[in-house]
């Protein structure tokens, strides 16, 4: 079965090629949709089969590298299209193909009637292809191919409705900001190659595992790779692209900008866990950046009114959480959170998509409210998602979030824990602010008369994926029930071989069940519950409170609702000076002014010299004769007196 991993990767590419090359001739949306979904569906089925086979194998024998063909080979560099099937990659593959399949199905309904329907499915399939390359690659270069490939698809899909200017801007911004991260990633790759002489994971990590902790080159490698992750996973300071990326179709936001692509950074760090474990300084940076991002994004989310923007900042915040987990050395927890987050965040996005669909592309939550009665299925599923992300047991979010908090606590930094806990509370708060404003209360849009909106429940292709994801959001976390609650942490055991080297280096104490664990669990649930309660109180019962607060702390509110002016800062500090400097100084100044000036100046000089020089030869014969005589006189003179 392992040999079929190539087919898992290839199927979506076939789908993309079919839809991309002949899709515009197939006028039938159903055919296009089925081609798009079925290829991903088959991939999912195949990966499930592989997964089952893996579970059947001996624990030590589960990982395998399937080498297909040579890619780039020159000098000492050898890379191939080779896929590493192991616990980590198969888990990611399952998430990608599984959630991807649901979103494909959902998109058939969501994108109905769009003139670019074929194009959309082609891009989406291409994305799955690239993402699978990313998670299955057995070397950093192939990972980079997937890494850039998903970036490209994200570019294409954000700018899918290219007639609007802001979609193009957002797409370009996403790509370019990602490229800044990729720059770091590339340098990281070079350093790895210089240090280890290979880019393949296994030999590389094997070599690394015997190196001593804290070696400078490892610090630089991991830092550079982390810069790549910062770009892809939208962390400080490169998070600015993700909220703008919401310009794309909502299923795209669900798939790419919530469930899969943005978690690539987390995956990559987890994959290189061995390296990171050897670089404690980088791990600290990862933890701090992660936490800062989590807090910052959560605070921005408090004030946003665009339903998708709230979810986007929530994603940024959750990604920060994942990096926090990685930063304290809990690599498996980071992946665990990626896995649960994929379910509930995809669910939330798809739910919001259903709402937007129903509200005829209205995204402002201040103009919604009371949708509960119009679209009950969407409401229920969305609510499940919100509860899951808030961390209320026994939904998925609780388990992963609780593990993160526990690890942070055991890491010994109370400060980190406090901020992480506050962020959890904020998360619960803004999610329920969203739920309240959208679904509860009275409608704030026109229900009757002209320009009235008539919200309606979404079609089955959209609701079925919602329901499936809702179920997964509930049960998805049960693979990681902590010991304190009598669970076995199945996912930890499953992933352990992947992180075995890193764990050995980190040597985190295997903490047993303590009273403090129960306290922590209770605390985190309490914080989440408090958040939910406050949100419900403020926005449902006493809507005057948030308004009052906003007025009272108008400065803070302004900063938050303007996202800390980060975009403006970047524009003023980097973008504008570069563009202006290039235009005025480099192009007009150096290129046209100095270099061409010198060139044309030389030409002018020749012209001027010639202009006077040619006066010697004006065609008057006597002039020539004078010169002639002069020559004679000169020669005689020279002969006489030399």
């Amino acid at each position: 079965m392992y040999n079929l991993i190539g087919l898992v990767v290839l199927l979506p590419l076939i789908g993309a090629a079919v839809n991309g090359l002949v899709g515009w001739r197939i006028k039938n949306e159903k055919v296009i949709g089925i081609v798009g979904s079925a290829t991903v569906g088959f991939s999912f089925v195949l990966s499930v089969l592989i997964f089952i086979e893996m579970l059947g194998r001996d624990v030590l024998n589960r990982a395998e590298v399937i080498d297909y063909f040579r890619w780039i080979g020159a000098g000492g560099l050898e890379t191939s299209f080779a896929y590493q099937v192991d616990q980590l990659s198969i888990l990611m593959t399952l998430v990608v193909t599984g959630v991807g399949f649901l979103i494909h199905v959902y998109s058939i309904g969501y994108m109905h009637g769009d003139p670019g329907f074929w194009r959309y499915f082609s891009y989406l399939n291409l994305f799955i292809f690239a993402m699978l390359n990313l998670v299955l690659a057995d070397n950093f270069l192939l990972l980079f191919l997937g890494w850039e490939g998903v970036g490209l698809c994200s570019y294409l899909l954000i700018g899918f409705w290219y007639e609007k200017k802001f979609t193009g801007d957002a797409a370009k911004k996403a790509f370019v900001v990602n490229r800044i991260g990729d720059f770091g990633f590339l340098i990281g790759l070079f350093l790895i190659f210089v240090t280890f002489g290979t880019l393949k994971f296994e030999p590389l990590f094997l070599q690394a595992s015997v190196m001593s902790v804290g070696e400078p080159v490892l610090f630089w490698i991991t830092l550079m790779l982390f810069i790549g992750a910062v770009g892809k996973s939208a962390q400080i300071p490169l998070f600015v692209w993700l909220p703008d990326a919401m310009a794309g179709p909502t299923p795209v936001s669900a798939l790419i900008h919530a469930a899969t692509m943005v978690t690539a950074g987390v995956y990559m760090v987890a994959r290189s866990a061995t390296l990171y474990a050897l670089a404690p300084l980088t791990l600290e940076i990862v933890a701090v950046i992660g936490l800062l991002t989590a807090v910052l994004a959560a605070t921005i989310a408090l004030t946003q009114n665009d339903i998708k923007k709230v979810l986007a900042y929530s994603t940024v915040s959750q990604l920060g959480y994942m990096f926090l987990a990685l930063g304290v050395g809990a690599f498996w927890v980071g992946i665990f959170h990626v896995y649960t987050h994929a379910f509930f965040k995809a669910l939330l996005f798809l739910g919001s998509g259903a709402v937007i669909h129903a509200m005829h592309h209205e995204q402002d939550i201040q103009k919604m409210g009371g949708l509960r009665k119009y679209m009950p299925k969407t409401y229920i599923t969305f609510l499940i998602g919100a509860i899951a992300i808030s961390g209320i047991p026994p939904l998925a979010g609780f388990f992963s979030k609780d593990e993160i908090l526990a690890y942070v606590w055991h890491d010994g930094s109370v400060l980190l824990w406090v901020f992480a806990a506050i962020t959890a509370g904020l998360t619960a708060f803004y999610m329920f602010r969203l739920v309240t404003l959208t679904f509860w209360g009275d409608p704030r849009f026109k229900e009757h008369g002209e320009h009235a909106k008539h919200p309606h429940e979404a079609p089955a292709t959209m609701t079925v994926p919602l329901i499936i994801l809702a179920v997964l959001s509930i049960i998805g976390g049960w693979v990681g029930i902590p010991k304190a609650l009598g669970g076995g942490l199945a996912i930890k055991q499953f992933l352990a071989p992947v992180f075995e080297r890193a764990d050995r280096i980190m040597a985190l104490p295997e903490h047993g069940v303590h009273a403090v664990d129960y306290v922590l669990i209770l605390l985190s649930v309490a914080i989440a519950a408090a958040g939910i309660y406050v949100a419900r109180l403020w926005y449902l019962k006493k809507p005057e409170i948030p308004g009052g607060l906003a007025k009272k702390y108008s400065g803070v509110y302004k900063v938050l609702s303007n996202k800390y002016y980060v975009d403006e800062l970047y524009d003023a500090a980097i973008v504008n000076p570069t563009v202006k400097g290039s235009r005025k100084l480099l192009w007009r100044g150096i290129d046209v002014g100095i270099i061409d000036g010198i060139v044309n100046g030389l030409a002018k000089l020749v012209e001027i010299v010639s202009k006077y020089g040619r006066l010697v030869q004006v065609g008057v014969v006597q002039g020539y004769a004078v010169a002639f005589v002069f020559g004679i006189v000169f020669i005689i003179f020279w002969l006489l007196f030399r």
Partner: protein
Amino acid sequence: MTFEEAFVYILAAGAIVSALLVITRRNPINSVIYLVLNFFFLAALYLTLKAQFIAIIQILVYAGAIMVLFMFVIMLLNLGDEKQLRDRVTWKQMVAIGLSLAFVMQVIYIVGFGETDGMDAISAKAAEIGTVEYIGKELFSHYVLPIEAISVLIVLAVVGAIVLAKRKLD
């Protein structure tokens, strides 16, 4: 100063004056007349050098044939006086005159300091080699090839002159 010497000096002075007159006359007709005069002086000078044949040729060919051709052309073209001969002496002319003076100085300098030993008097053979007989013998023995060549050249020149000067036939 013997009479002979005085005679040579007078002839020399005449040659120079007539030459100067050639290049300073406005009217080309006058120039031609003075040029003919100059040629006569030169012919006389050739005689003092005992070159009778050359002197005769000078009169016959130069003064007699060539200068008549000049005269003929000037009259054919009916040229008037040259304007602005002296009213505008350009810097180019100044330079030309200056250069020429420098040139003549140089030559005289060379002549003055040159080695002319054994040549302070006309050779005894001079009277012999200047005769028609001697020159004729030389021309048609030693110089027979050049003389044939030059005769061809003369023919070519005549044909060329006709071609150049004739009006178009159309």
